[in-house]
């Protein structure tokens, strides 16, 4: 079994490397623009909680901007960034060039067309229904599906050209993630089984699978490549990674109905979802342990490597966020937290604390290898610390505020009391969100440096132990 990350293949021409790098740069830059847009919208939304009459009118009304924020985050920012990383990892770990640079560019255009059209449609009031993460009208979601198909084809073609018998684990996760998401997108679009309560069950399936079978495998696949690269040592246990792959595949699709506990969905469906939410601890703890054990004894390296620090936070975010998800699925805790802002805190702990930090760690670790250009230490540290502190404030304030909401309801207070009681926590959420947004501006600057800045004179992140490892 192949246990180490393959490096440059001698047969690769300079032209192939440049094509890979420019594709990677283009995906990352477009993703970054979406990040800035989506989080600027998020900041405006956060502000409206305290000043509901600020930015009035149809186009800036809360209910239209809310899905624009989530969809732009999901399908603009995170999807583009992770696909760019997946391409780079696929080509490098297979020791080959991209199957088709042209297809990668076509995919980039399709992803962006879908995200732009979706954003405009939602702002004009064309919504497929307030169905979480699939609000875009279906023709636009078809464009997104086309982008996924192109990506899957290209990734598979690239890995098929590999120069070794084995397929490196990263590619299991990324190819799997793209293939499964094609199915998710298709199931979400087809209308014949989506009437009334039937659509509720599809919503439960969709809203969780779109997160956990798309962002999670792509981010984990990137971990399996970037961590060994940064540390110059193989992943702790390849077999554990394979085990986590299959258990995640089997358990995750079953847990979606836990978003509709106490709803009129069949009780057995809800209970099954709870049981498998507990089972999810197996791949989550297995995967997290694998990453943390790969880092064992080398945590001191983080002082010299911001990419490693980003990935470390990403791994902790994965562990804590997913474990929290399991506990939230218990009926006793859902009674308090369901429908409150606690859920919003949870989704930011996972999408931000896990997925965003994973992407940033991956981009900082790999983009300089592709372009030979590095960001400055100041930019890295500003991004890291503002993002960490900001998201910490964000998640903690909404977790406390959401709990207070839930308890207010349980105590039978007038409903408006729950709105009054959480106000100060919404202010803190805004403070956290502002820090997060500022960190994204710094990230954009860092991406600029990695793409068009001065070339690094030395290898950007020479690991401390590189000499020993090479010896």
């Amino acid at each position: 079994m192949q246990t180490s990350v393959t490096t440059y293949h001698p047969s690769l021409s300079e032209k192939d490397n440049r094509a890979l790098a420019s594709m990677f740069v283009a995906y990352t830059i477009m993703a970054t623009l979406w990040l800035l847009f989506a989080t600027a919208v998020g900041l405006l939304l956060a502000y409206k909680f305290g000043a509901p009459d600020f930015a009035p009118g149809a186009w800036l009304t809360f209910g239209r901007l809310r899905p624009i924020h989530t969809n732009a985050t999901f399908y603009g920012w995170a999807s583009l960034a992770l696909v760019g990383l997946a391409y780079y990892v696929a080509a490098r770990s297979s020791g080959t060039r991209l199957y088709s640079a042209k297809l990668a560019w076509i995919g980039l255009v399709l992803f962006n067309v879908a995200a732009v059209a979706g954003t405009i449609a939602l702002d004009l009031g064309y919504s497929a229904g307030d169905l979480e993460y699939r609000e875009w009208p279906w023709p636009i979601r078809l464009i997104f599906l086309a982008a996924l198909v192109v990506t899957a084809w290209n990734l598979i073609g690239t890995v098929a050209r590999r120069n070794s018998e084995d397929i490196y684990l990263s590619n299991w996760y990324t190819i799997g993630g793209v293939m499964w998401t094609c199915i998710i997108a298709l199931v979400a679009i087809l209308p014949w089984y989506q009437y009334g309560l039937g659509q509720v069950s599809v919503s439960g399936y969709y809203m969780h699978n779109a997160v956990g079978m798309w962002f999670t495998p792509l981010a984990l696949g990137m971990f399996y490549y970037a961590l060994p690269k940064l540390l110059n040592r193989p992943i702790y246990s390849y077999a554990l990674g394979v085990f986590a792959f299959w258990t995640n595949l089997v358990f995750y699709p079953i847990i979606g109905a836990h978003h509709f506990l106490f709803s009129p969905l069949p009780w057995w469906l809800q209970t099954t979802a709870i049981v498998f939410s507990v089972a999810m601890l197996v791949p989550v703890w297995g995967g997290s342990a694998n990453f943390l054990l790969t880092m064992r004894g080398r945590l001191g390296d983080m002082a010299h490597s911001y990419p490693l620090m980003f990935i470390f936070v990403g791994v902790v975010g994965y562990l804590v966020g997913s474990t929290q998800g399991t506990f939230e699925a218990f009926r006793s805790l859902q009674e308090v937290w369901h429908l409150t802002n606690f859920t919003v805190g949870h989704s930011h702990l996972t999408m931000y604390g896990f997925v965003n930090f994973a992407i940033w760690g991956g981009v900082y670790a790999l983009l300089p290898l592709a372009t030979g250009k590095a960001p400055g230490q100041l930019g890295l540290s500003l991004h890291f610390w503002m993002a960490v502190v900001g998201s910490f404030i964000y998640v903690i304030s909404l977790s406390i505020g959401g709990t207070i909401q839930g308890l207010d309801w349980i105590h039978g207070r007038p409903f408006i009391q729950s709105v009054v009681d959480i106000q100060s926590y919404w202010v803190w959420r805004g403070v956290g969100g502002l820090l997060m947004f500022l960190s994204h501006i710094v990230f954009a600057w860092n991406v600029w440096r990695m793409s068009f800045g001065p070339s690094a004179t030395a290898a950007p992140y020479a690991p401390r132990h590189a000499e020993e490892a090479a010896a």
Partner: protein
Amino acid sequence: MNKLVLIAGGSTLVYACLAVLMGVLPGIELSKTPPGPGVLPLTALQAEGRDVYVANGCSYCHTQQVRPLPQDKIFGRPSAPGDFAYQTPELLGSERTGPDLTNAGVRQPSAVWQYIHLYNPRAVVPESIMPAFDWMFKVVDQALPGMTPVPLPKAYAPPHGVVVPDHQAEALIAYLLSLKQPALPGSSGVEGESTMPSMSSVIGAGTPIAAPGASTVASAPATRGPASAAGGYDVAKGQALFTANCAACHQANGGGLPGAFPPLKGNAAVNDTDPAAHIHAVLHGLQGVKVGGVAYSSPMPPFSGTLNDAAIASIIDYERSSWGNHGRVVTAEQVAAERAKGK
């Protein structure tokens, strides 16, 4: 190549099976759920209103699912599978930043209130953080026949002319007013006595803790008279119930909204030594009456189905001893006697 087929193809096959099992099959089965008794399709105008609701993302803050939990009882009976037969796209929602709207047409049947609230929610609920939908209204010099001007409080009204809803707003309000849970067979439903014992247990559980919270809400414009002078009832409980059930129209300061909702402050029925009319109004609602010489067209909903005698007595006592009112307080037994008389 074989390995690639195994991993990519094999895992995709496994996933496809699970997607059918957990997504498609439950979808097929549940899509066949027949409508419950009394569950009707929407009229054309109401359906149009539902589209306005979807387009503007109302369900990101308002759920339409009542859970079988005590804290959800205020929103109606637990939702049943048959309630959703005509609801595509589904609007169950995932957050309850604002109240659940499953039964909104029963809880707040006044179109006038709905229009004022839609125009700017803070005109009727000062603490509300809902967006203003004033862009669904237009200002005209004079309401033409067939136009219904919205009686906005002065602070929210335009300097000249009157505000009338446009078609979107009319459709949306028609939809909101159509949100009424039909009674379930085998229970007397929302209007039924069966909901009452549990209702009172919810209120009972909340009472000791409600006191500090309720006073926070009232720290807005409430000017309560010396409650102890009235004596004999739990002020905090009465205030909490008033805030939850009455303040949206009659306002926390008891002043109502001129031209829209009558004041309780200085209200003759509230200060009458004979509490019968007051009790009757809370139990069975009111429509088309004159208060203080002013005619009010908005209907007041009945509370006989959602509140028990003790809760209604608490509300009445709070109203009779606040804002300078000095009506004699009533007991739950008096409410029970009035309830027994029927409409």
